[in-house]
Each structure stands twice: as structure tokens, then as C-alpha cells.
């Protein structure tokens, strides 16, 4: 049976909401933030109205219910990525998760140890390592990109050395949608005893995965890109790595015992969750993971591949448009970046918005990649499973209007 996109769309209230005087919404900015279905909204509403309380400390009924819900969310996220619950650290998002690793795993690194990233990384997977370099004197190296917007893994042999301690790469590039060949990265890391961190922010909206089978030490992702709320994310750290890491921030929840002289820290994952955690967002993120897992993901993959092909074919037929990224359908997400010579991506995005088409224009927090192409930015259409052919038609029609106006 064909993927029932209409049934999926019906679950997203915002897709059926039209602001006064505005054209219908064609939301193609899912790489920045995806929308939330009724199931997620309902889960958070239910928690706030029946079990709102703090977790882990109080003994009253609401606190017990909140603790069960929060720890249940941890178990849900563990199932979603094929990990153990004690390997799931809730953070405020992918950026916080990577920063946590840079601080805590980074605390074990010595001057001269090497961290390898790529030119295709989001700033969130570059800046924390530059900051660690300033603190500790590590050496930061970067894999270049291929012409079609993939991480150039041919260069692994040159850039991985006996001093490499961590290879930190995106699982799928937020600008080009290219999916990284993780097995090859893990093999290179293991050859020198290094760990692998993956930025999974763009990958997880496409379904559950098995980080244990992937063989990576760290996996980081956000709730708001996978149909959950913002302000919540996950760091999955392999248990032996987390056990060896010092805390990130100090305060409530992360302690075993505090005296005025010293503090003994809690075991992971609590060691890394100082302060009252984002309880309702965690519950919403878990609801999103469960909702996503319950969708026809094979159908969604085929549906999105068809939409991606429709978009790329349409864009390729337009004068002055260059797609920045893989041209084929293999090992790519439905994330399509392009330039529209000689126009600026913000001007293109602004006019598309006036036609109800929401895309992202700019550098997408990937300035090193933009610099490598000597462009200010791209227009990016990033698709989710609720997008349909009307959305792609609206994008292509909107671009014709841009060309007519400017």
C-alpha cells in the first residue's frame, strides 16, 4: 500500500492552519525544526495537567509520576537508538551534547592529541573542539568535502594518526543531506584506538537506529528536529566512556553526596544532568520517538526519495540553479541545497515565504563549508515525511516567481 501522506499530515495541526491573509503553508524547513504531531502535543499536555512536578526527590504522588515518566522517557530514547537507558543523557539539544563531550571526554585529552572533524560540520561540531584546543592544546584537523558535498573519507588515511583520539562527524550533513559511511569511519578510528562521535541531528527524524551496531562511542541529537519539542536533546555515550568522564556542570541531581569539603558524583547518566532536567520536553521527545517508530518508515523513505527526485529534477531544469550536494538518491537525506545565480539566498527565501513556502536561506551554521565553495550561503529545502508533491510544486513555482521578480 502506498504511503498515506494525507493521513500523516492530518496529525499535524500547524499544517492545517493558515494565518490570516497568508497563502497555505508549505513547510520545507524541517532541517531547522520539524513540526509536532497531535500525539506529542497530547503527551506533553497530559503530563503538565496530571503529573507536573519535580523528579527524583519528593515522595508525593505527582513527583513519583513525574519520575516514572521522565525515566520512562529515558528508556524510550534508549530503545530508539539501540542503547542502554544508563547510556542516555538528556541535554538541551545536540549542541549541548557535543559541548558536554568536548568538556568531559576532552578533559582526558592531552596537548597534541588530535580530534578530527570535517568541513561539512555544523558549527556546533566545530566550535566546541576549537574551544577545547584553546583550553588543552589539542590538534584539530578537518576532512575536506567532495565535489558532490560528501565528507571526503578518502582522506581518512592521511588524517588519522596514532595521536587521533576522536573522530567527530555529522551522520548526515545539514547542508547537503549526504549520509556518512559510518562503518568506514569506525574502521579508521579503531585502527588507532580512537572513538567516534556522530552528530545525528539530521538523521534521527528518519527513524530509529542502532548506535551499538554502528560502533560509535557518542551519538548526539535533538528533540525538535524529530517532531518533538525544543530545549531537549540526547547524548548517548557508551557506558565505559561515560563512567570515565568527569561531570559537566555541578548542582542538584548529579551528586551522590555533598559535604563542605568535597562532593562525590552520581553515576552516569545522572552525573551529567545537573539541575532540574527538562522533564516535559523529555516526555515530548520520547512521545515523538514512539510516534515516529510507529509510522510506515519504509513507505516514508520511498515517499521522500520520490519528492527529493521531483525537487532535484525541477531545480536542475531551471536556469541559474546549482544543486549543492549529491545529485543521486543513494546515501542522502531529503535535504536539498541550491544556489540561484546571481541571487542571494535570503532574497530567494524571502520571496518564497510570500508564496507560503518556508525554506532556510543562509549559511546553515556551516560557514567553513560555504567558504570552501566561496558562497555566502544556499537556499535549503529540507523535507519531512508529511511533505507532499504540492509542497515541491509550490517550491518550484515560487522559484519561477523569484526569477520573474528579481
Amino acid at each position, binding site marked *: 500500500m502506498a504511503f498515506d501522506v494525507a493521513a500523516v499530515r492530518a496529525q499535524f495541526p500547524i499544517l492545517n492552519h493558515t494565518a490570516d491573509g497568508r497563502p497555505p503553508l508549505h513547510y520545507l524547513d524541517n532541517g531547522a525544526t520539524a513540526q509536532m504531531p497531535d500525539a506529542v502535543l497530547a503527551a506533553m499536555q497530559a503530563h503538565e495537567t496530571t503529573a507536573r512536578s519535580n523528579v527524583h526527590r519528593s515522595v508525593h504522588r505527582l513527583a513519583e509520576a513525574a519520575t516514572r515518566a521522565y525515566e520512562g522517557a529515558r528508556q524510550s530514547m534508549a530503545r530508539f537508538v539501540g542503547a542502554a537507558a544508563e547510556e542516555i543523557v538528556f541535554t538541551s539539544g545536540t549542541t549541548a551534547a557535543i559541548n558536554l563531550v568536548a568538556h568531559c571526554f576532552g578533559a582526558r585529552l592531552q596537548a597534541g592529541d588530535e580530534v578530527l572533524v570535517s568541513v561539512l560540520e555544523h558549527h556546533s561540531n566545530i566550535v566546541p573542539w576549537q574551544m577545547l584546543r584553546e583550553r588543552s592544546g589539542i590538534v584539530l584537523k578537518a576532512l575536506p568535502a567532495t565535489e558532490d558535498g560528501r565528507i571526503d573519507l578518502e582522506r581518512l588515511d592521511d588524517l588519522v594518526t596514532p595521536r587521533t583520539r576522536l573522530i567527530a562527524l555529522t551522520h548526515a550533513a545539514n547542508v547537503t543531506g549526504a549520509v556518512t559511511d559510518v562503518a568506514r569511519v569506525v574502521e579508521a578510528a579503531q585502527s588507532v584506538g580512537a572513538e567516534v562521535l556522530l552528530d545525528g541531528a539530521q538523521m534521527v527524524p528518519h527513524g530509529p537506529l542502532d548506535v551499538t551496531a554502528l560502533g560509535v562511542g557518542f551519538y548526539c541529537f535533538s528533540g525538535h528536529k524529530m517532531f518533538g519539542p525544543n530545549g531537549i536533546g540526547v547524548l548517548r555515550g557508551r557506558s565505559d566512556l561515560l563512567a570515565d568522564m568527569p561531570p559537566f556542570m555541578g548542582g542538584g541531581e548529579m551528586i551522590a553526596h555533598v559535604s563542605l569539603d568535597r562532593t562525590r558524583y552520581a553515576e552516569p547518566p545522572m552525573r551529567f544532568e545537573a539541575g532540574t532536567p527538562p522533564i516535559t520536553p523529555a516526555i515530548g521527545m520520547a512521545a515523538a520517538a514512539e510516534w515516529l517508530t510507529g509510522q510506515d518508515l519504509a513507505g516514508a523513505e520511498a515517499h521522500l526519495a520520490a519528492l527529493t527526485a521531483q525537487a532535484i529534477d525541477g531545480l536542475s531544469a531551471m536556469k541559474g540553479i546549482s544543486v549543492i550536494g549529491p545529485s543521486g538518491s543513494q546515501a542522502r537525506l531529503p535535504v536539498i541545497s541550491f544556489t540561484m545565480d546571481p541571487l*542571494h*539566498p*535570503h*532574497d530567494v527565501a*524571502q*520571496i518564497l*515565504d*510570500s508564496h507560503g513556502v518556508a525554506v532556510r*536561506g*543562509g*549559511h546553515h551554521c556551516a*560557514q567553513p563549508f*560555504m567558504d570552501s565553495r566561496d558562497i*555566502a*550561503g544556499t537556499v535549503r529545502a529540507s523535507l519531512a515525511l508529511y511533505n507532499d508533491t504540492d509542497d515541491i510544486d509550490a517550491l518550484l513555482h515560487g522559484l519561477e*516567481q523569484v526569477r520573474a*521578480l*528579481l
Partner: protein
Amino acid sequence: MSEIYQTAFLKLAGRASGAGRLDAPDATATTHNPMCGDRITMDLKLDGERIVALGYEIRACLVCQASASIVGETAVGRTLSDLSEQREAIRAYLKSESEAPVDYSDFEPVKAHISRHHCVLLPYQAIQDAVSAAISD
């Protein structure tokens, strides 16, 4: 259709008044817009506080280009204090706290788009950065 890109606005951006680098400027700086990656390199020749020549090289959106074009048309002969006041007047106008400064009436539709306000102000930031760089040299 987007209201920003009206004929007069497009003509203003297209004029690119003042575009081009100066030889041996007294002050120069390249300013980036962190929100979108746009950049403008601003060159100034100064007589004390007064701008006697101005040139720039720009890679930016039409909103920023149009604002730079106004700077190119109006900045020479004015003082740095004038330009600083102009910048604050534009900022207040974009926030609907005051009327449009002279020359900026075509920017009325931009006011509704908060993400584009920094595009309007980037040339003024570049002037300030150029002067700051010259002072620190």
C-alpha cells in the same frame, strides 16, 4: 508577492552607489553578518571626523546592498558622529519607534521582517568597525 522588492528598492540596490575599493584608505574593515554570512569590506578616507571618501566591496542580500547604496550616496562629507546618529535612527525606525530617516522610506516593508533588520544596519556596522580598526592600529 513580497512587498520588499518593489521597483524603487531594486533600483536603489542596483545602483550600488559607492561600490568599489579605495586606494590607501585611512580606515578599513571587513564586517560579517553572523546570521547569514554576508560580508562587506568598508574603506574610508577621513579628514578628522569627516568622511572625505568611501568605498566598499559587498557580498550580501539586496536589502544590505540597498542600504550600502544609500551610504555610498550620502556618507561623504558627513561626520562619523552623523553616521552613528543615522544608524541609531534607522534602528529605531525598524523597530517602529520613529519615522523613516531621510532616504529610507523604501525600507518600510523591511520593518515587518525582523530577521532582515541586521541586513540594513550592516554597512553602518562596517563603518564603525573600520574606524575602530584604524584607532587600534
